[in-house]
């Protein structure tokens, strides 16, 4: 059983470091480390992002357990639609980082929610959507390796949960690295806000360009 638990995490890490989810990982890293000057916000964002991924994988696993849908059909559906939806999401995330668009959601009490809170909460949905957008490698590892393992170990919730943590680990690692690194450099030059702005701008531009590329390729052409 311990072997199975370790395998689940490892499969998650393998999924995350394969070249195919690179764009979504860059998006996640930059989004999580958006407020690098605030370490607490980076930590909460990381946790929420992980929870989002966990939610996605356990939901899929649950759907498979109730077996309302055939695994191959579900896998192919998520791959076809995942890649189409990623482009627009990358553009919006990028535009948000560049502060080209701002979101204002009035809270129930009538006062407006602080934008930082919305950003932090967004991490959860980013994790959820990125996890649902399967690419061939992640589909092979999740549906082809993890699900059979979960079925044979009769652990259809715990193993997908660990897999979800595994897929989030590299992203959290890099986000923390940026947060710690830039705050070190920042205190050195007392210019942290400037560095934060630079990193955010660079990431934002990368995301918008990648998003447009994905959208053109997978929605307009294919």
């Amino acid at each position, binding site marked *: 059983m311990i072997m199975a638990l370790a395998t689940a995490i490892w499969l998650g890490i393998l999924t995350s470091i*394969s*070249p*195919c989810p690179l764009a979504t990982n860059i998006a996640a890293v930059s989004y999580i480390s958006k407020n690098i000057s605030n370490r607490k916000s980076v930590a909460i964002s990381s946790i929420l992002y992980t929870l989002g991924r966990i939610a996605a994988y356990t939901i899929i696993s649950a759907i498979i357990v109730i077996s309302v849908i*055939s*695994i*191959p*059909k579900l*896998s*192919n559906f998520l*791959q*076809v639609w995942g*890649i*189409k939806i990623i*482009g*627009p999401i990358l*553009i*919006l995330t*990028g*535009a948000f980082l*560049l*502060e*080209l*668009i701002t979101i204002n959601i009035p809270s129930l009490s009538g006062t407006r929610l602080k934008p930082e809170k919305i950003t932090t909460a967004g991490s959860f949905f980013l994790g959820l959507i990125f996890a649902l957008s399967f*690419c*061939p*490698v992640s*589909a*092979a*590892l999740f*549906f*082809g390796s993890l699900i059979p393992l979960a079925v044979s170990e009769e652990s259809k919730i715990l193993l997908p949960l660990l897999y979800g943590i595994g897929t989030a680990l590299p992203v959290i690692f890099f986000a923390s690295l940026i947060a710690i690194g830039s705050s070190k450099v920042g205190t050195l030059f007392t210019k942290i806000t400037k560095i934060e702005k630079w990193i955010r701008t660079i990431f934002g531009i990368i995301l*918008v360009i990648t998003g*447009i590329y994905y*959208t053109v390729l*997978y*929605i*307009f052409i*294919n």
Partner: protein
Amino acid sequence: MNKKKTAGIVLILFVILSIFVLVAKEITKKETPKEKTALPTKKITEKEHIKVFYFHGNVRCPSCKKIEAYTRETVNSRYKNEMEKGLIEFHEINIDKPENAKYIDKYQLMTKQVILAEYKNGKETKWKDLDKIWELLGDKEQFQMYEDMEISAWLKEINR
């Protein structure tokens, strides 16, 4: 500030347009009757033979292309004689085409996969998913050795 706002609006409009195109494409896809594309004429080989299938979708990622290239190379270079004799056939199939959707359930296809199928008297007698290909993709030699071992084991059986 205004420039920022304009850029934001342009990007949002682009996103809305893309969603519109996506939905429109989906609707028209459902409306157009399935065109009947002539299936490639199959040689009816009565003798026993093995089919090596490579399944993919409309979207081709670098790893998927690599799988196809490695598999083609394995078959073409190591089984040239058998290919000429008709003992081995290589088929590359796009499962996003409606006429090929049947393969998804038949071989339980979840992603881009390589499937071996054995044919006797024109009928498929067994099939196998070469499921280790994704793990071995990083090592061309291991990848091709794995495919080679599987194919040669099956070939031995039909050659008996």
